[in-house]
Every structure is written in C-alpha cells, then in structure tokens.
C-alpha cells in the first residue's frame, strides 16, 4: 500500500455511493420516461370510442394498465430521488456515467452495427448484408490481427451465404434477396 491511497475503505465507500447514485440517476430517468409515456398512452387510450356491444371498450384495459404503470413510476421516482440524495447527490452520479458508457462501448457499437445491418438488409440482401455485419462485429469483439481477419472472413462467408442457402433450399424460408444481388 502506498501513500497515494491512504484511506482505501473510505475511497471504496465513496466509489460505491457514487455507483449507487449513478445507478439511481439512470433508473430515475427511466421512471420518468416510462411514467410520461404511460400518461400519454392513457390519454391516447381514452380517445378510443366505447363499444355498444360490451361494457369495456377497446380503450379500457390499456387505460387501466397504463394508469397503474404511471402510479408505479411516480412511486419509484420519489424513492429514487431520496436515494440519490442519500448517496451524495448528482455530481458523483454524473461523474460515474462516463465510466458506465466506457464499459459498454463495444455493446453499443455492436448495437449500432445491428441497426445499420437491419437498415440495409432489404436493399443489399441477406447474404451480402450479413457478411458485412458478421465480419465487422467479429473484428470489433476480437480486435484486428491477421489471424482474426482470416477467421472472421471464413466464419462470415459460411454463416451469411451458407445460412441463406440452408434456409432457402432445406427449409423453404426465403430471406431478403435485395435489389442489388439475388443470391
């Protein structure tokens, strides 16, 4: 132990309080988002016309569900604000948020890649789009070296063109062929 870390226990306590505050802040945001969305859905469900055939119309059940959701979110949000206050307030929470994002950077990169893949799937077709997705995703996870590039190209070829052929020829499930190339 060095002089630079004089109070590890206290430092841990501060760190965990900051972590708790960070988690609670993120949850608070989620409660607010869900709560506002629930109130909006209650309003939309209320505008649905009633039915002459039944006591409950199309809007009653969603209204009931979203009122309960709004109430739960309100309760959870109040509890969250109290917890954030107990754990050192907002500055620590904002500080820790950067680390939260850093830990998840590959996950978010893969998700972004998935969104692009789904966006171009109908245009490029399954085989080509999947080949690109698999290749980039594998290299994102494993890192770029000569070995990983060779492995990734082989795996991407097998699981893009191979899967397409398997589903089309064996299961009669036709995946998007795309306007550019119809594999």
């Amino acid at each position, binding site marked *: 132990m060095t002089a630079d870390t004089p109070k590890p226990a206290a430092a841990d306590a501060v760190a965990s309080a900051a972590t708790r505050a960070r988690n609670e802040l993120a949850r608070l945001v989620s409660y607010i988002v869900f709560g506002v969305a629930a109130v909006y859905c209650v309003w939309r469900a209320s505008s649905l016309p009633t039915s002459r055939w039944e*006591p409950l119309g199309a809007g009653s059940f969603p209204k009931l569900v979203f009122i309960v959701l709004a109430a739960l979110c309100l309760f*959870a949000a109040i509890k969250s604000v109290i917890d954030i206050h107990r754990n050192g307030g907002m500055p620590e929470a904002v500080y820790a948020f950067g680390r939260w994002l850093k830990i998840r950077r*590959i*996950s978010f990169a893969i998700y972004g890649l998935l969104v692009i893949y789904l966006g171009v799937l109908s245009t490029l077709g399954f085989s080509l789009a999947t080949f690109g997705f698999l290749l980039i*995703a594998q290299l994102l996870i494993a890192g770029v070296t000569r070995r990983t590039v060779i492995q990734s190209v082989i795996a991407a070829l097998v699981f893009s063109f191979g899967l397409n052929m398997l589903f089309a020829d064996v299961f009669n*499930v036709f995946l998007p062929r795309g306007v550019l190339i119809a594999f």
Partner: protein
Amino acid sequence: MLDAFFQGAHQVFAFDTLIYMLIGSVAGIVAAAIPGFTVTMAIILTLPLTFAMEPLQGISVMLSVYVGGYTGGLISAALLGIPGTPSSVATTFDAFPMARNGEPGRALSLGVWASFFGTIISTLVLIVAAPPLAVVAVRLGPWEYFSLIVFALTIVASLVGNSLIRGLIAGVIGLGLATIGPDPMMGRPRLTFDMDLLAPGLPFLVVLIGIFAISQLLDEVEIHGKKVNHALIPKSIDFKTWEVMREVLMRPVNLIRSSLVGVVIGALPGAGGSIANLLAYDQAKRSSKTPEKFGQGIADGVVASEAGNSATAGGGLIPLISLGIPGSAVDAILMASLMVHGISVGPRLILDHADLVYGMFIALTVASFMMLVVCVASMRLFLRVTDIPKQFIVPTVMICCVIGAFALNNRMGDLYLLGAIGLVGYILKCLDYPLAPLVLGVILGPIAETNLRRALMSDGDWTVFFTRPISALFLAAAVLSVILSIRSIWKAHKKGNGNKDALA
C-alpha cells in the same frame, strides 16, 4: 381394447416409423434450440411431410418433433442464457447461472432428464385421467380463465429479482406492450400512433427474442477490465449423465408437482408451455426451504421449469383426444393433421379409432425415450458451443435471432421492432430491471383482456368473478400468493439476507 393397443403398438414400432420419429426428434431439438424457431413452427414445417404417411405414422412423427421441441429450447437457455422457445424462459433463471458456474454439462443433463420424466408423467396422466380432466377443463368459462390469469400474474413476485417495484413496473410494461395493435375482441387498432409498423401489434416472439436474446448478447460483449473474445463458459466440462438422473429422481416432490402443473396448464385451452414453465418454477421456489438460492443456479429450478414445460405435451392432448378441443397451437396442428387423413377428432375418437389413440400414447412414450437418447448422445456436441469464442458466437446467434424474427411473418417490420425492443431490453437489463415479468406480462396480457371482456359481455356483473366457485378459488389463491410473497420479501428484508434494495 387389448387388440387396439397391440394394433397401435404394431404401427408405432414399425422400422420406418421409428426412423421417421428419430429424424423428427432431432429436427424438433435443433429447431427449438434456435431462438425464434418455435415448436409450432417446427410442427408446421413437418405437417406437409406427413401427408403421404399413414395417420398414426404421421402423428407419431409430429409427436416426436413436439417432444423434441420442448426439450431443445433448454440448450440455448442453459448455454447462452437465451430461451430457445417461450416455454424455456424459466430454464434460463437457474440453468444459465449453473453453466456459468462451470457446470454446463450438469445444467443440460438436469434439463434433459427432467424433460424426460415430465413427459412420461404427463403421458401416464393422459392415459389415466384424460376424460375427467378434459371435462373440468372445458367447463371453465371466461371468469375462471381471467381469475387464473390473475393468479398467474402473481408469479411476478417470484421473478422480481432485486427490486419489487422494478419487477412490477416491468410486468406492467409487458401488459402495456400487449395492448398495442388490434384489440382482441373487435380488432380496433389502438396505441399504434399511426405507424404501419405497429398496426399488426407486437409479435410475442419478436418481443421475447429482443428482450432476452439481443439484450443477453449485447451484455456478453461488455468490457469489465478483461478481453471479451474468450469462450462463454471457459471452464472444463464435467459430464455425468447417470449421476444427474439420480439427482433428478431425488427430487420426487418437485418433479411430480411440476409435471402436474404442466399437465393441468397444458390441458387448459389457450395456455401452454410458456405459462407452465414459469408457474412450475414459481411453485418450486415457494415450496423450497431455500428460496433465496433460486436464480443462482439451483437444480430444483432447472427441474421444475423443464418438467413443467415438457409435461404440457401430454396435458395438451387431454382435451384434444377426449373432446376434440386443441389445448394449444401445436395441438391444433396435430388435430389438422388427423383431419387431413379423414379422422374426425372429438369424443368419439377413442371409440372409433382406439388403435390410433393407444398408438398416440405409445408414440408419446417412444418419442420421449428417443429425445432422451438423442440428447444424451449429442450432449457433448451441444456443449462444444461453450468452447467457441464470443467473437464467433455472439454475432452468429444474433443473425439466427434476425432470421427467427423474420421467418415468423416474412416481414421486415418485425426486424425493426426487434432492433428497438432489443435496445429497450438491454437498457432495462443495465438498469437491473428483471426481464422475466415483462415477458410474462406480454404472454398473459391478451389472455387476461380477452377473458375479462368476454366475461363482462356475458354478464356485466363483476361479482360473478367471486361467486363462481372455481373462479373464487383462483382469486383466493392469488390473494394468498401475494400475501405470502410480501411476507417472504419483508422477512428477507428484515433479516438483511436479501438485497437492501429488495423493496425499492
């Protein structure tokens, strides 16, 4: 009667029938192991192949796919934490942590043996109690169904994880998601926000894949100060099939109770494996002396879930054989298959085609033995999945999820929903929301709404829910279940055993 039995046995044990059944069993296991490919889909793909077969031969092959499918879902549930089918959602709770704790072989073996015994027990119940159980099942009206769903929703308390409030929010979000799209009674569009994408509603399987699979896969590649391209389960695999069989048999109460839950839920038209595995898991947790160990990789959890979902195979055949009412989509396809061969399904089936009915009983038993043999023989092959580095398995399984979601309706819109729901699932997972209650809400929401509205259309008086005996019984069970859950959470909170966040 004995003649009919031997006639049925003679047809099932024909060499070509056994070969076709073996192929069906493998196909069911493989199909169910792919997220998004359900037992129903596997059966639908099999149906045209059976048209040229004899009726019993065709139905035997489909039963093999059925039994194999209920077990196959456990493979991805245990090894990847992704339920291959809706009926293996609860399997992920304990089988996946067990695999992660270095016991993937044990997790798979427990699931396979529990599935095998679950199917056998359900077949025995089917043979002995088909007519009386079917009579009870059909006498249930919308009041009883709604009360049953209310009771089933109390399971949420068992699935909330670290926080009751977040579990409840997740459950209600699930119920809310189920209200998007055409309403179940009149087909009126609601909460679609004028988006074509939402007009048909959210397909349940797309929600399941997005919530469980995409979020789990994104979670796998997070960096916690170490390289991410190692295998999912890096430890060596210990594989003791027969020892695990004894381990399953040493839990007779759990095994029988979970199987009976599966039989009863399977016999109720509209319910099925997706509810049975959660209900069986919930009952096992409530009855356990160590409920706090559930969710950490306990054998009881795996046994309950797998015995529960597999037992619905026999349970679903009860109303089908006795009354001609299919208990689930799969049973409806089995019924269609019989009708294609000119056999009318109904109360006279057992009188007019006794050999066929006995043959079905025998085929179900043979199919479960085949499933066991196939799974035990190929277990090492499946376990090789755990040796594959994440760089290959994560993107490839993601592609399988995309194919599964697309193949449901051949709609690109489902893929966009998959992307959006996947992100929501991942964020909820990061924020420590339990995901199982959300899926439970999506499953139970439409059933609850349909039966509530149907009940009130027949009789606008709300008190009927309390005056009809079976409905009142379910509601009383629901109240009792909530009281017991709150009591156990409160006790854990006071003891300081559970998470401090438990009631938050």
